[in-house]
C-alpha cells in the first residue's frame, strides 16, 4: 500500500472531492470538500483499503485565512499494513458545521465533543454535543485565538513578579 495507490483509489471513487494533496514527512495528507468527509471516511473504512482505525479528530484555527478559517483534521490508520492517512476539511467562520462520524466510529464521540469544546465546531448528528473538558459555563472556546490569554483571566497579578 503506497500513498499514490490510496490517493488514486480515493480520486477514482470521488473524482470531485480532493482539493489538494501532499506528503509531509511521508504521510499522505489530503484536503477534501467539507460535505464529502463522511463519505470518504466511510469508503476508507469499508473498502478493501481497510483503513479502519480512527486515530484522532482535532480542530485547527487559522485566523489569517478567512475562507479556510476553521478546520478539522482526521487521522486514520490501517493496522494491518501500518498505513496512515491524514484528511483535512476547512470552512469559513460562519456556519461551522461538519458531519459527525459517530455512526461510523463510536470513538469519535468524545473526540468530537472535545473539538466542539475547544473550537466551537458543531458536528451534525452527534448525539450529545456539549463541553467535555472545560467547565460548562466557561463562555468561550479556548483554542480559538480570539481573546488575550493572559489578561483575559488575570485581574490582580503584578507582571514584574512573573518576568514579564
Amino acid at each position: 500500500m503506497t500513498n499514490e495507490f490510496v490517493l488514486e483509489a480515493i480520486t477514482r471513487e470521488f473524482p470531485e472531492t480532493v482539493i489538494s494533496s501532499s506528503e509531509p514527512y511521508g504521510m499522505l495528507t489530503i484536503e477534501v470538500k467539507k460535505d464529502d468527509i463522511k463519505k470518504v471516511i466511510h469508503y476508507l473504512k469499508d473498502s478493501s483499503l481497510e483503513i479502519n482505525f480512527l486515530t484522532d479528530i482535532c480542530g485547527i484555527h487559522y485566523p489569517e485565512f478567512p475562507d479556510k478559517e476553521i478546520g478539522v483534521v482526521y487521522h486514520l490508520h490501517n493496522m494491518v499494513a501500518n498505513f496512515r492517512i491524514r484528511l483535512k476539511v476547512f470552512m469559513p467562520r460562519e456556519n461551522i458545521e461538519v458531519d459527525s462520524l459517530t455512526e461510523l466510529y463510536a470513538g469519535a464521540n468524545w473526540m468530537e465533543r472535545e473539538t466542539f469544546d475547544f473550537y466551537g465546531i458543531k458536528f451534525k448528528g452527534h448525539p450529545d454535543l456539549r463541553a467535555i473538558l472545560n467547565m460548562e459555563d466557561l463562555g468561550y472556546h479556548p483554542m480559538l485565538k480570539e481573546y488575550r490569554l493572559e489578561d483575559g483571566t488575570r485581574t490582580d497579578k503584578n507582571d514584574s513578579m512573573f518576568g514579564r
Partner: protein
Amino acid sequence: MSDQKPIIRTDAPAPDGFEGEGFFATKLSSVIGMARKFSLWPLPFATSCCGIEFMATLNPTYDASRFGMERNSFSPRQADMLMVCGTISKKLGPVLKEVYTQMAEPKWVVAVGACASSGGIFDTYSVLQGIDKIIPVDVYVPGCPPRPEQIIEGVMQVQALAESESIRRRDMPEYQNLLDSYNISN
C-alpha cells in the same frame, strides 16, 4: 532502653487572667482559643507539587504533629483547617467550594503555594486565578512549591489566629457579609 523519664512541662504560658490562692479566672474565649490552637485538624486538599511538600511536612523530620495536627482528615467532617495545596482548575472550583461549605465552623483556610494563592504561572483559560476567587482565605503561604518550614509557618499563623480571635467573631455581621460576598450560606 532510655532512662530518661518523660518530662511534663508545667511552665507553659497561661492566658491572661486573675490568679489567686487556689483559683485562676480568665475569659472563656481565651480558654477556647487555646484549645482550638492546639487541636487544629487539617483537611489536605492536595492536587500537585505543593501537596507533596505538605506530605513532607507530616513526616518525622518536620513532624507537624507537634502542633496538635496529628490527625489529617480526608473528609470535611470535624476538620477545621483546609489546606489547599496546588493548582485548582476552574472545573475543580465548585468541588473545593463544596468541601469548604461542608466543613463546620470555626474553620480556617490556608492557600499553600503560588497556584492556590494566585494561579501561579498558569495564566490560562482553565486555571482558577487564586482560590480566594471562590472561598475566603486566612493565610497565604508563598513559594512554588513552599518548603515544609514555610507551610509550618503558615500553620503557626493559623494558630495565632485561632488563639486570638473572639469566639463571637463568626457571629459578627462582617463575617456574614464576607460569606455572602462569596455566595456561601452559613
